[in-house]
């Protein structure tokens, strides 16, 4: 990526971001030095096991880390050319919703049960456009129509508990997108929905992206969804991005043993069950991280080197990086086998 591209294309740039949670018992390093770029109109997938810090990363980007225990301790978040970590809380309110927004993990509980969805939608709209009531109303109707809610005029007076899960999810989407932010973070937006509704919803997001040139950060632990949705992918493990790159690249040549394991564990229709790869063991506690590679206790290619120091980052391709000693030319341990991608995936 050239400097010119950065200036024109990049909407979000995250550098060495660290978000720690200080509990009485320990310091949880939920996000421990991650960096990535996001271009306009691009979809970046963030994948990783439960508890690896995906949601905390997303909340950090909005500066909504749970207070007072959680704190962004280091790094830069450059959104539209400005480091939002330097902004005051007042200025942040203009950033949230208008420049960057987020769709939360659980649509069932994302809407306030005591207000109508019209009220909640208008509130979101009102923050960007301070207009009169009737134009606000028509904007609210438009916003619902955009997310394919049938008969939006009538839906405005409904309370959340009167809607289905899929419908609520779209309303949450409509609220998040109501102020036309440049970046939207979708945190596992479909886990609470059933499969057909998931697909519908993902397609909808894609359509909206095509229309508006929105950049999406898509958080999931489903590599299948990543393949369908994303242009690039970042794989997170224990608070760090251990590999990132183009989706095709990663699927065709996953470099990090953890990424390989993840891709292998995606069930394929034509694959017999006994070949399904699963990763033994548990990720380390974020409150008690080892010195060296965090994947070492579970890694089939581990050597002494891995326990001594955190691996350096290796560039495999343009924009494809991975943190693993086994990628080093002087690697002393077991070589990473030539990886055979499962059939039927991208690349």
């Amino acid at each position, binding site marked *: 990526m050239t400097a010119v591209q950065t200036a024109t294309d990049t909407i979000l740039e995250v550098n060495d971001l660290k978000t720690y949670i200080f*509990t*009485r018992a320990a310091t949880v390093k939920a996000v421990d030095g991650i960096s990535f770029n996001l271009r306009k109109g691009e979809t970046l997938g963030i994948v990783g096991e439960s508890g690896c810090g995906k949601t905390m990363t997303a909340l950090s980007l909005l500066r909504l880390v*749970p*207070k*007072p225990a959680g704190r962004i301790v280091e790094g830069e978040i450059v959104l539209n050319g400005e480091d939002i970590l330097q902004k005051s809380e007042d200025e942040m309110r203009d950033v949230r919703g208008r420049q960057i927004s987020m769709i939360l993990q659980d649509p069932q509980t994302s809407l306030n049960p005591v207000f109508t969805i019209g009220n909640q939608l208008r509130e979101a709209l009102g923050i960007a456009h301070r207009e009169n009531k009737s134009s606000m109303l028509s904007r609210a109707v438009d916003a619902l129509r955009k997310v394919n809610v049938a008969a939006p005029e009538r839906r405005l007076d409904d309370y959340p508990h009167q809607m289905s899960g899929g419908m609520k999810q779209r309303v949450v989407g409509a609220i998040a997108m109501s102020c036309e932010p440049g970046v939207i973070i979708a945190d596992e937006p479909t886990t609470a929905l059933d499969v057909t509704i998931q697909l519908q919803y993902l397609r909808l997001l894609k359509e909206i992206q095509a229309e508006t040139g929105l950049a999406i950060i898509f958080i999931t632990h489903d590599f299948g969804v990543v393949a369908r949705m994303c242009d690039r992918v970042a794989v997170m493990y224990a608070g760090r991005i251990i590999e990132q790159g183009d989706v095709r690249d990663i699927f065709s040549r996953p470099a990090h043993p953890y990424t390989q394991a993840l891709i292998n564990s995606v069930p394929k229709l034509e694959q017999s069950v006994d070949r399904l790869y699963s990763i033994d063991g548990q990720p380390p*506690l*974020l*409150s008690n991280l080892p010195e060296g590679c965090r994947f070492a206790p579970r890694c089939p290619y581990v050597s002494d080197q891995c326990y001594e120091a955190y691996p350096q980052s290796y560039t495999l391709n343009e924009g494809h990086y991975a943190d693993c000693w086994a990628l080093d030319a002087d690697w002393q341990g077991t070589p990473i086998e030539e990886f055979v991608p499962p059939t039927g995936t991208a690349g």
Partner: protein
Amino acid sequence: MAAVTTTPEVAAPSTPQRENRLVSGLRVARELPVIPLLVLILLLAIPAIFANQLAPHSQRIGVLDDAKLPPFWISESFEERMVVQRADRNRLDVEIGLSNAQRKVERGEATILVGGEDGEVNPGDTLRFQARKGGSMEYPLGTDKQGRDILSRIMHGARISLMVSSLAILLGGGLGTLLGMLAAYRGGKTDSIIMRIVDIKLAFPSILLALVLVAAIGAGFTTVIVVIAVLLWARYARVVRGEALAIKQQDFIDRARVSGASNARIMMRHIFPNLVNTVVVLATLEVGHVIILESTLSFLGAGIPAPTPAWGVMVADGRDLITTAWWIFLFPCLAIVLTVLSMNLLGDWLRDKLDPKLRNI
């Protein structure tokens, strides 16, 4: 600004088993509510048990010459001023009415400071009383208007509070537990009748019910216990029923039934032991409540009858003298508040340890 919840993942790294037990033992010891326990032992248990041995003076007979002595730290004697008000049925705080004041002036016990131009005491005049004796260690917390030692009476009062609350809880808790178990175990009509009565009982303001009951039976030690028990049982019945219903679902009850155990046996041998924690926690949580009820009834004159030094009675005694001899009402008040406070803290702690699901009752 969301609240931070610690996730189980953030648990301490595992250590050898034995050390863990030691550590958790130490933690329990450290978490023990030391101050409440000390207060309870010093203020309630020891005086209650050893009142006869420890109390420096009689609980009932006072020395009139020593009436209304202040506590020991107010040692200097001092004079007292008072504005004369007209005696009024609704103004219980006015200690001396006009005639009373007149008598005191005539006897030379008080002089008129402001007013009294005609040599008479008129409403609105300010009187100055003669110097009064200061307090001493003889009566550490002072004396009441009959010259009785307040400390001794508080000690005896502790015994009454303890007796009333334990007996009332035993009675009410026992009844409630029994009815709750019966409702859960028998189900159907028994259940709905018992629970309907519980609802009605819980829907009735308790002091009012107690007052009407006391008026019906007549005040006295036994009445207080019975009345409080009547107020208590419903809460027990409701909680115990809920618990017992859950226990009833479990396999071992079916097994007992299949093996031919009688209903009474199943209830006593199989269901009740599983309820013990709940019942104990409820009992501790209720002690404070019962002490408040008892002292309120006694204060209103519908509880323990007067010469007995129940704390509520003592407060009622001192109420009229609040302007001149505050220690008479204040110390028994503090005894009640401290005891109940400690009991509540202890109850909370016990509940968190034994039966956390009771937290929201």
